[in-house]
């Protein structure tokens, strides 16, 4: 009768593996993945962490680690374990996240994720199997392949001129500030095995206590791909690998670190309403009104002239007055060129396109804007331009008015509020049919919390409005 010795933390048989031999692992004879599994499993069991643990199986020979670990398990894409671990740990504060990865997975395709998670100090215990080759795919060169080592993709031996030098992950991680614990271990003799066991336990204790990132590199050979027997494999680790990759604990600042605690989600509607400002900022809903005009306004000028916020104030006013309204800006490089524009459409009906290609009203704050958009004003439409431009050529069939924006703004006590001047003028001449109080509410909402700005802009608005009324008489 077959006698099964149960390893703590490891399932007693492996039904996920399928097939007949349900107590044998899928690893090759002589491979030390089994030893590492056992050390991790026992440590998790001894520390009573199995319920809290999620083991991440990588892509590589350990892809089926979930056959074995008696914990929660997840299998992930090649190289992405550190990112997945981040997602788990960030959303489940108490989870003990264990990432188990090979050198292709961790140091090649996943190098970015590896370093960034380490640098953020994620609460993950990383067990990094450095066997100097890609085991699962047939022994190709890995970032950790030794100089001169022959693999199927470095048949003449790794040539540093072609393929660079063996990557020292442990030392690389040691450049970062956040990690709590960093060590390199091997199983090449009993004393080293004991040190390895201790390092593994420390890495898991750090997770138990929620202190952050722990990295343990484990040197192993790959007898199958390196065509070695067990003794040769151990010798390869002890003599060649350890010469290139020195063993030791490079960092242990467990004692100095406090637990990292992630917040719990607050789902309450009151919380959300409050943080989104619904307590203070509420607009009325739009009212269907087929008699209300649909007006399209385009506003354009230099970046600093406030044309985008001119549009927003107008949009707010329309909203306060119960109109359907939309605002659409130019964005990105267009803005970087120094000019900006936006379009506002308001109506008593739901708005179709928010883009303004034919404008009922155009506000041009500088000459390039006037040149660019003057042709887009509808026949009979209104063109307001900044009087500071001086003489301009205007299209035929449109109403044109030069607005002394700076002068009016200055007179109102706020020289920078040229955009508010334009809103004031539009409120009279734009044909929007909005009640006057809506504009004041819009200004108040736009500068919420800044009483001086509200006062100044309201004064400028009134001044501009009066000016426009005088013009229309």
């Amino acid at each position: 009768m077959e006698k099964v010795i149960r390893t703590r933390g490891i399932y007693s048989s492996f039904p996920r593996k399928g097939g007949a031999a349900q107590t044998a692992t899928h690893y090759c004879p002589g491979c030390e993945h089994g030893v590492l599994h056992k050390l991790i499993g026992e440590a998790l069991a001894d520390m009573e962490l199995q319920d809290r643990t999620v083991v991440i199986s990588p892509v590589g020979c350990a892809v089926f680690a979930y056959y074995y670990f008696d914990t929660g398990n997840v299998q992930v894409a090649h190289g992405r374990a550190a990112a997945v671990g981040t997602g788990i740990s960030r959303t489940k504060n108490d989870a003990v996240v264990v990432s188990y990865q090979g050198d292709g997975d961790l140091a090649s395709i996943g190098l970015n994720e590896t370093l960034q998670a380490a640098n953020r100090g994620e609460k993950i215990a990383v067990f990094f199997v450095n066997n100097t080759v890609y085991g699962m795919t047939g022994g190709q060169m890995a970032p950790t392949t030794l100089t001169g080592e022959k693999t199927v993709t470095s048949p003449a031996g790794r040539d540093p001129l072609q393929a660079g030098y063996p990557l020292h992950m442990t030392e690389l991680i040691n450049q970062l500030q956040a990690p709590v614990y960093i060590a390199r271990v091997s199983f090449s003799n009993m004393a080293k095995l004991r040190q390895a066991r201790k390092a593994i336990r420390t890495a898991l204790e750090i997770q138990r206590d929620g202190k952050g990132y722990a990295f343990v590199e484990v040197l192993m050979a790959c007898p199958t791909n390196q065509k070695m027997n067990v003794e040769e494999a151990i010798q390869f680790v002890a003599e060649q690998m350890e010469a290139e990759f020195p063993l030791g604990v490079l960092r242990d600042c467990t004692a100095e670190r406090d637990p990292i605690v992630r917040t719990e989600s607050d789902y309450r509607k009151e919380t959300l309403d409050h943080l989104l400002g619904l307590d203070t900022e509420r607009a009325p809903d739009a009212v269907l009104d087929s008699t209300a005009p649909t007006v399209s306004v385009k506003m354009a000028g230099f970046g600093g002239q406030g044309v985008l916020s001119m549009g927003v104030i107008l949009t707010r006013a329309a909203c306060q007055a119960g109109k359907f309204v939309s605002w659409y800006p130019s964005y990105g490089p267009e803005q970087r060129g120094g000019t900006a524009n936006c379009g506002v459409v308001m109506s008593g009906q739901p708005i179709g396109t928010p883009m303004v290609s034919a404008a009922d009203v155009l506000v041009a704050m500088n000459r390039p804007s006037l040149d660019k958009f003057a042709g887009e004003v509808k026949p009979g439409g209104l063109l307001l331009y900044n009087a500071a431009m001086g003489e301009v050529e205007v299209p035929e069939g449109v109403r044109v008015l030069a607005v002394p924006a700076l002068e009016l703004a200055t007179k109102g006590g706020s020289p920078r509020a040229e955009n508010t001047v334009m809103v004031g003028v539009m409120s009279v001449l734009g044909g929007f049919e909005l009640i006057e109080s809506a504009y004041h509410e819009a200004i108040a909402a736009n500068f919420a919390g800044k009483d001086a700005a509200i006062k100044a802009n309201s004064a400028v608005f009134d001044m501009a409005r009066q000016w426009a009324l005088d013009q229309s008489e």
Partner: protein
Amino acid sequence: MATQLVKGNTAVIIGALYAGCDSFFGYPITPASEILHEAAQKFPQAGRCMVQAESEEAAINMVFGAATTGRRAMTASSGPGISLKSEGISYLAGAQLPAVVVDIMRAGPGLGNIGPEQGDYNQVVKGGGHGNYRNIVLAPASVQEMCDLTMRAFELSQKWRMVAVVLADGVLGQMIEPLRFPEQSVAPETDTSWAVDGTAATRPNVVTSIFLDFDQQEAFNNQLQEKYAAVEAAEQDVECIRMEDADIALVAYGISARIAQGAVEAARAEGIRAGLFRPKTLFPFPKDALNAFVDQGGKQVICVEMSNGQMCDDVKLAIECRCPVHLVNRLGGNLVTEGAVLTALRETAKQI
């Protein structure tokens, strides 16, 4: 009722918060960045998790991790980033994990530009990554729907254990409109039947996308196809405007639909019987309603989209080319104009 003026990208985050999304993982890209900015500001205030990832690949895999724990997770990006996320989306599909991805489309291929386009349709609606999978795809056409359909995306992705994508464009992301806020907030619960969240209840579970045995992989694939068929039967959604007596249907989603709607009104004023057929779900495509249009004597279809006819192909498939299907499109960051749609309507009306 609570209404505020809100930017489309902001509305996504408002929807996500009320939908009980626990975590946001993102990487900056115009024109989707404001979603990341808003998440960075608002998520921590509600105790939710937000991480600026090192790349879109990392972001989608963080989503994978958060989804593994049964929590609601999302990411947002634009075309170049969605390409990078495709690997992770395939893995999410293979592991049947729910997650929400928002794509604020910009012009491509390659780096393209940041202007609005709808060229990610095939990538997102057909799956995008490797393998026989689909995503649920929702297509908002207003700031209101940027919020509402983000909430719906969480609901559907949870219900079907699928990735749900909110497919919008640069215009919808950047524009401001009044938003009626959600009237309820969701406090989701972890489904311990499949999640792995570091608790005793979920310790026996495994989240994986591997089936070594060919027959098992086939059976799993067939099971996925059955699920997708059930989604097609249950979740088709469309808004029809003046379609009851329409001879010509304008089929358009997102911002293109808003433009097409203007053309419908103009055409009606000229006596052309046009209607707007606006899919709100792109997968499942609202085939049944479009077939009903053809069955009831609909004569012509004009697709309006900012792509090289990617949705137009699905329209032809949906109605098996039972009536002529035309395309009015613009590319490169340009919008189709109402005038161009109206011209096409006039031309098409002559053929009836």
